């Protein structure tokens, strides 16, 4: 650090870093400040479609939120989906990521193949699973009947709708986690592995004490990116169940959308959306804190 060239480079660094970072910041602020400000404004007013007169109502939209049992229900559903999906997708993602980083013949094909679920447009995913999970005509129940099992109502039963959504989400997004992790595996240095082998470590030990710690930064990023999307769970619910049956699959994002667009209450919808935004920020902060503590 005390080499003269390094010190000189430092002042140039300042300018360079600034130039590198500012376009991204300008873009972010330009694109999101107005929308967030607008949502904040809406949430403090009583929104009447079409009218340009605004009536400030203070925090009453937020107060209404606290007393709204569907809101709390959707909060609960959001958290259940978030935790269950994240846990399963991380575990499966790590497993897949490691498996895919081995250079066996056929590895390329498999990597492309398992990524397909993340590639298909969510509309198609939703409609496809509606068909597959149809209680009477669906392929899933056909498989169960072959196996001698009782048919399930899947999405149409409040007791199984979340499990069904979790299965679909894990199927769709574990490969996404795997892809990030494979990328990380490929940038890992080889010496620690060699050293561990020389020390006579078994497979589990290598995984637990070498692979996992080295992969941690990449895994944390994968978790962070997936969390941000999971807390805003939307597409498949919007397409398949609209939050039903009987609100059993209502997520915060879907609920705020329904309030804003279907029930034409943009103010209340905005209030819920801001709560959701806050929740996402909070969860991301926790994850970045964890990330820093670990590294």
């Amino acid at each position, binding site marked *: 650090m005390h080499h003269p*060239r*390094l010190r000189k*480079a430092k002042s*140039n*660094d300042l300018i*360079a*870093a600034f*130039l*590198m*970072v500012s*376009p*991204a*910041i300008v*873009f*972010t*602020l330009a694109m*999101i400040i107005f*929308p967030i400000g*607008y949502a904040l404004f809406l949430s403090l007013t009583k929104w009447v479609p079409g009218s340009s007169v605004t009536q400030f109502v203070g925090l009453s939209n937020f107060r209404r939120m606290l007393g709204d049992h569907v809101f709390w229900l959707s909060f609960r559903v959001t958290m259940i989906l978030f935790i269950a999906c994240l846990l399963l997708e991380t575990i499966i993602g790590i497993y*897949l990521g490691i498996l895919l980083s081995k250079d*066996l013949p056929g590895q*390329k094909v*498999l*990597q*492309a193949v*398992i990524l*397909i679920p993340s*590639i*298909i*447009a*969510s*509309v*198609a995913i939703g*409609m*496809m*699973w509606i*068909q597959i999970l*149809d209680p009477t005509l*669906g392929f899933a129940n*056909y498989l169960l009947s072959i196996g001698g099992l009782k048919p399930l109502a899947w999405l149409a039963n409040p007791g199984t709708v979340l499990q069904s959504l979790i299965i679909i989400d894990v199927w769709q997004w574990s490969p*996404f986690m795997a*892809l990030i992790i494979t*990328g990380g595996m*490929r*940038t890992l*240095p080889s*010496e620690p592995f060699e050293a561990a082998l020389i020390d006579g470590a078994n497979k589990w030990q290598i995984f637990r004490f070498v692979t996992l710690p080295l992969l941690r930064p*990449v895994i*944390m*990023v994968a978790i962070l*990116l997936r969390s*941000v999307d999971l807390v805003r769970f939307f597409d498949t619910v919007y397409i398949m169940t609209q939050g039903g049956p009987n609100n059993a699959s209502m997520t915060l*994002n879907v609920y705020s959308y329904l309030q*804003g*667009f279907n029930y034409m209450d943009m103010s209340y*919808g*905005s209030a819920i959306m801001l709560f959701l935004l806050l929740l*996402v920020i909070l969860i*991301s902060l926790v994850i*970045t804190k964890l990330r820093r503590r670990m590294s």
Partner: protein
Amino acid sequence: MQNKRYYVGAYVQYIILALAFLGPVLWMVSSSFKNNVDITAYPPVILFKPTLNNYLNLFRVYPFGQYILNSFIITGFSTLLGLILGVPAAYAIARFRLNSIALLSLLARMAPGVLFLIPWYIISTSLHISSNDFADYLSLILAHCVITMPLVVWLMISYFESIPIDTEESAVIDGCSRWGLFFRIALPLSLPGLAVSTVLSFIFSWNYFLFALALANNATMPLTVIAFNFIGEGSADWGGLMAASTIISLPALILTIFAQKLLIKGLTAGAIKG
């Protein structure tokens, strides 16, 4: 002996995984070659007379070629822009530990998409009263960049961080500027990360439908919005939907296959580093 068991084990896993992840996809693709009446049939029809009608109809009934082109324009440019904005930012963030800026860039991705719809619509309306296609594409590309850029930033930070500092320091001593370090050392070393970022940005941007619903008009509508149009009152065109879905999935799939080469290249870069 050890080796053989290893191979068998790995391939058993390969087959199970391929079945699990590919099963529903196979169902989709095979449905795209079926008549509607066979798609909803129970028990499922395994053997059927394949038809190309679903695909032909896409181009006969809809300006499907135009939709495909629109999707490519929006996704391609938003991915590119996301990389241009995101990669240098990620490098600076990784090297100077600008964590707050990293979080700020993620803010765009944290906000629920619905939140943007009306405000953006208001802005874009006030900017292009005469509604020309170029302005439309531009607003869509910028909107989709909200999806791609934070993804690129966050992925690249972790890949840049995994490059050891001493590699760069020795280059500085050799008279390399910060930009030189970025272009000549950091970027080549993080090629696998770059490949992953590109693939994922492309996929996310390609599949996002909400922004296009608000900002696109007839001429600039991408594929994903149109995919909703197959199931409507009085006409449930399952075959058309499955054919459209299959086509929608193809480009990202092809890209993934191509990016594999980059991923492998990254491996050799890692070897040099090691």
